[in-house]
C-alpha cells in the first residue's frame, strides 16, 4: 500500500493494521454511492441557490410573530403610516400554500394566485411555485416545476421577477407562459404581451424578448433559441386557463405531438416520415414552407414537440381523476407500466369497466409504447361506452392519427373519416385546428389540390396564424 505516513517507527505491525483499515475505508468510499445522490443533490442545490433570498425573508417571519414588543411596533406603524403604500398581498384559489410561500397546484387544475396589484399567476395542474419578497412594487415567483401563465399588471415602477430553474425573468408589465422541466433542464417561454429580459445560463447578459417571441433553452445541451414566431398556440387560449399548456401542446399538428419514436409513421402525410422534422416536411411538401419559420427553427428540440412536455401536460390534465396512479406513471414515461397493469387486470375487462379517463391514459400509454392495437381498442371503447363525452369525442382525433400511422390509401381514407367525424361532433373542440389542417393535407393527397382548397380557405379564415396556415396559403396561391 502506498500512503503518506507521519508516525513513529517503532510499531510497524500495528501500522500495517491501521494502514489496512485505512485502505478498507478508502475502498469502501471511493466512488459515487448507489442511488445517485450526487446527481439528485444538484437539483436541490440549484433550488436552494434560487430560493435563498426567499428563505431569508420567510425565516424572519416566525421571529416577528413571536415577539410581542415587535408586534406593538407593528401596530404603531400601521397607525402611523396608514396611508402609505402597502406590500403586495395575494390570495390563492384552488391550491395550497405553506408558510414559506410555497404554492402547490391542485391536480384538478384551476389553481391561481391573485395579487393585490392586479397581477395573477395561473399554475398548470401539479405545478409548484414559491412566492415571496413582496414589496410595494412587486415580488418574486420561483417556478419550481411545471408550467404557469403569468400576468403582471403594468404599473409605474412595477418590479416582478420570475425564476425558473437557473433562469430569471425580469418583468415590468406583461403576460407570458413559462414552463420549467426540472428533470430535462428545459425552459420554454412564450411571451404574449409586453417585454421581458431573461437571464440565466447562456444568457448572462440577458435576452430581451418582445411580444410574440418564444425562447427555448436546454441547459443540459447548452442550447438556447429565440424565434419570432408568434406563440399562436397560446394566444388563442383563455388567459387564465391553467390547462393552457396542455392545450397548446395538443394543438400542434398531430404529426408532431404523438408517439416519441413513432411519430415518423404518424408523419405519414409526408410519405416518408422520419420524425418530427419530417412532420414539417410533410406539410411543407404540400405547399412549401407550411410551418412558421420560427417553429421550424426550433423544431428539432422545441418543447412544443417534446414528447415529455406533452406527457407531463397529459399526466397533469388527464390523469387528474380516479386513477391518478396511471396518470402519474404516464407523466413519468412509464408507458409499459401502465400497459402491464392493464394487461394484468385483463385488457377486455379494462375496456369494459375502466373510467373514461383511465381509457384515455391507457390509450396514450399504448400509443407512446407503439402498441397501436391496444390504443385503438381503448379509444374505440371510449367512443362506444362514453358517446358524447369529451373523451369520446376526442378519441376520434386520436383514432385519425392512428389510422395515419398505417400505410395505404385505405388507411388515409379512414383517417380522413375520423377527422371529419371529429369536426362533426366537436365543431368548436380543442383539436379543431390540427384536425382541419390534417384534413386539408389528406384531402389534397387523396383527392387533389382543387378539393383541398375550400378546406384551406376555411382553415385560413378560422386560424390565420395556425401551424397549417402557410400550407393553406400556398395551396390557394398556386390556384
Amino acid at each position, binding site marked *: *500500500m502506498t*500512503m*503518506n*505516513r*507521519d*508516525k*513513529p517507527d517503532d*510499531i510497524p*505491525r*500495528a501500522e*500495517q*493494521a*491501521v494502514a*489496512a*483499515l*485505512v485502505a*478498507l*475505508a*478508502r*475502498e*469502501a*468510499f471511493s*466512488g*459515487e*454511492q*448507489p442511488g445517485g*445522490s*450526487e446527481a*439528485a*443533490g*444538484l437539483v*436541490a*442545490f*440549484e433550488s*436552494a*441557490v434560487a430560493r435563498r433570498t426567499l428563505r431569508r425573508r420567510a425565516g424572519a417571519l416566525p421571529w416577528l410573530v413571536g415577539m410581542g414588543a415587535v408586534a406593538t411596533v407593528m401596530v404603531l406603524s400601521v397607525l402611523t403610516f396608514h396611508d402609505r403604500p402597502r406590500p403586495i398581498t395575494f390570495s390563492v384559489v384552488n391550491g395550497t400554500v405553506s408558510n414559506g410561500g410555497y404554492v402547490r397546484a391542485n391536480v384538478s387544475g384551476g389553481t391561481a394566485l391573485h395579487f393585490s396589484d392586479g397581477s395573477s399567476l395561473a399554475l398548470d395542474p401539479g405545478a409548484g411555485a414559491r412566492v415571496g419578497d413582496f414589496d410595494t412594487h412587486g415580488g418574486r415567483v420561483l417556478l419550481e416545476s411545471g408550467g404557469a401563465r403569468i400576468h403582471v399588471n403594468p404599473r409605474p415602477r412595477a418590479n416582478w421577477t420570475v425564476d425558473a430553474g*437557473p*433562469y*430569471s425573468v425580469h418583468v415590468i408589465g406583461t403576460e407570458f407562459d413559462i414552463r420549467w422541466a426540472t428533470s430535462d433542464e428545459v425552459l420554454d417561454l412564450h411571451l404574449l404581451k409586453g417585454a421581458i429580459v431573461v437571464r*440565466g*445560463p*447562456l*444568457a*448572462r*447578459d440577458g435576452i430581451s424578448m418582445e411580444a410574440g*417571441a418564444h425562447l427555448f433553452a436546454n*441547459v443540459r445541451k*447548452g*442550447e*438556447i*433559441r*429565440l*424565434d*419570432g414566431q408568434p406563440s399562436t398556440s397560446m394566444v388563442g387560449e383563455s388567459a387564465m386557463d391553467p390547462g393552457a399548456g396542455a392545450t397548446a401542446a395538443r394543438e400542434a399538428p398531430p404529426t408532431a405531438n404523438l408517439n416519441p419514436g413513432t411519430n415518423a409513421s404518424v408523419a405519414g402525410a409526408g410519405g416518408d416520415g422520419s420524425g418530427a422534422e419530417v412532420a414539417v416536411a410533410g406539410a411543407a411538401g404540400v405547399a412549401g*414552407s407550411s410551418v*412558421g*419559420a*420560427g417553429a*421550424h*427553427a426550433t423544431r428539432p428540440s422545441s418543447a412544443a414537440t417534446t414528447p415529455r412536455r406533452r406527457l407531463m401536460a397529459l399526466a397533469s390534465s388527464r390523469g387528474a381523476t380516479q386513477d391518478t396512479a396511471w396518470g402519474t406513471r404516464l407523466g413519468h414515461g412509464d408507458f409499459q407500466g401502465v400497459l402491464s397493469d392493464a394487461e394484468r387486470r385483463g385488457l377486455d375487462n379494462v375496456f369494459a369497466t375502466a373510467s373514461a379517463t383511465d381509457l384515455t391514459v391507457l390509450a396514450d400509454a399504448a400509443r407512446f409504447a407503439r402498441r397501436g392495437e391496444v390504443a385503438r381498442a381503448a379509444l374505440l371503447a371510449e367512443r362506444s361506452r362514453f358517446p358524447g363525452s369529451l373523451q369520446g369525442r376526442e378519441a376520434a382525433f386520436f383514432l385519425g392519427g392512428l389510422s395515419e400511422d398505417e400505410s395505404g390509401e385505405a388507411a388515409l381514407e379512414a383517417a380522413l373519416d375520423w377527422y371529419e367525424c371529429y369536426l362533426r361532433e366537436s365543431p368548436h373542440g380543442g383539436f379543431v385546428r390540427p384536425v382541419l389542417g390534417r384534413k386539408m393535407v389528406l384531402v389534397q393527397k387523396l383527392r387533389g389540390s382543387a378539393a383541398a382548397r375550400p378546406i384551406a380557405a376555411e382553415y385560413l379564415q378560422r386560424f390565420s396564424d395556425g401551424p397549417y396556415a402557410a400550407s393553406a396559403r400556398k395551396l390557394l396561391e398556386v390556384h
Partner: protein
Amino acid sequence: MRGVMREERGARVLLLPGATLDGSEDADLARALIAGDPLAPRALWRRFAPMVFRMLRRALGPGHDVEDLAQEVFLCVFEKVRNLREPKALKAFVISITVLTTRGELRRLWVRRWIRPSGKSDATNKAVVHLDTDAREALSRFYVVLDRINAQDRTLFVLRFMEGLSLLEVGAASGLSLATTKRRLSRVWAKVILLVERDPLLGDYLTTNPRNRDSEQ
C-alpha cells in the same frame, strides 16, 4: 451578447454555442461564481461534488447520510466565495469548508452520543454494501475507534491518510501551520494505532483475513 443572430425563413433565430464552465479552470469558475454567473453553481457542483461526497463519507463513516451536509458545504461555498482572495484556490476553499462542516457534524454526533449512547449502533446497520461481512464489521469498528478521536484530529487523519493530501494541503485546509500539522498527525496516528491494537474484534479481523495477512508479510 455571445452567439449568432441570423434570419431563418423570416424568423429571428439566436443560436448560442454550448458555453459551459465545466471545462474551465478553477480560477475562471471562482470568478464566475463571484460575478453571479447563473451557470456557475451547476459547474461548481459538477466539479467538486464527487470530492465533497467522498470526503464526507470517509470522514463520517458508514451509516451517515451526507446529502444534507454536502448541500451545506456547497451553499456555504456559494455564499462565501466572494471572500475568496485568490480564485485559483477554489479547490482548497471547498476542501476547507468541507473540513469545517465535517468537524461541526462530528461535534454534533459526539454530543448526540454523549446524550444518547445507544445512537452509535447506527453505523453497523447501514454499512457499505459491496464489502464482505467481515470487512463491513471491521470498517464499523474502525469508525468506532475514530469516534474516540476529537473532531479536528479526525479530520486531519482523514485528509492525510484517506484523501492523500499533502501536509501543506492538510495544514491549509485546517488552518494550521506545517509544524503543527505534522505534530498533530503524528499524535493522532499513534493514538489510532493504540486504539486499534486494543480493539479485540479488529485484531481478530486483521490476523484472520487472508488479504490482511498477505499485506503484513
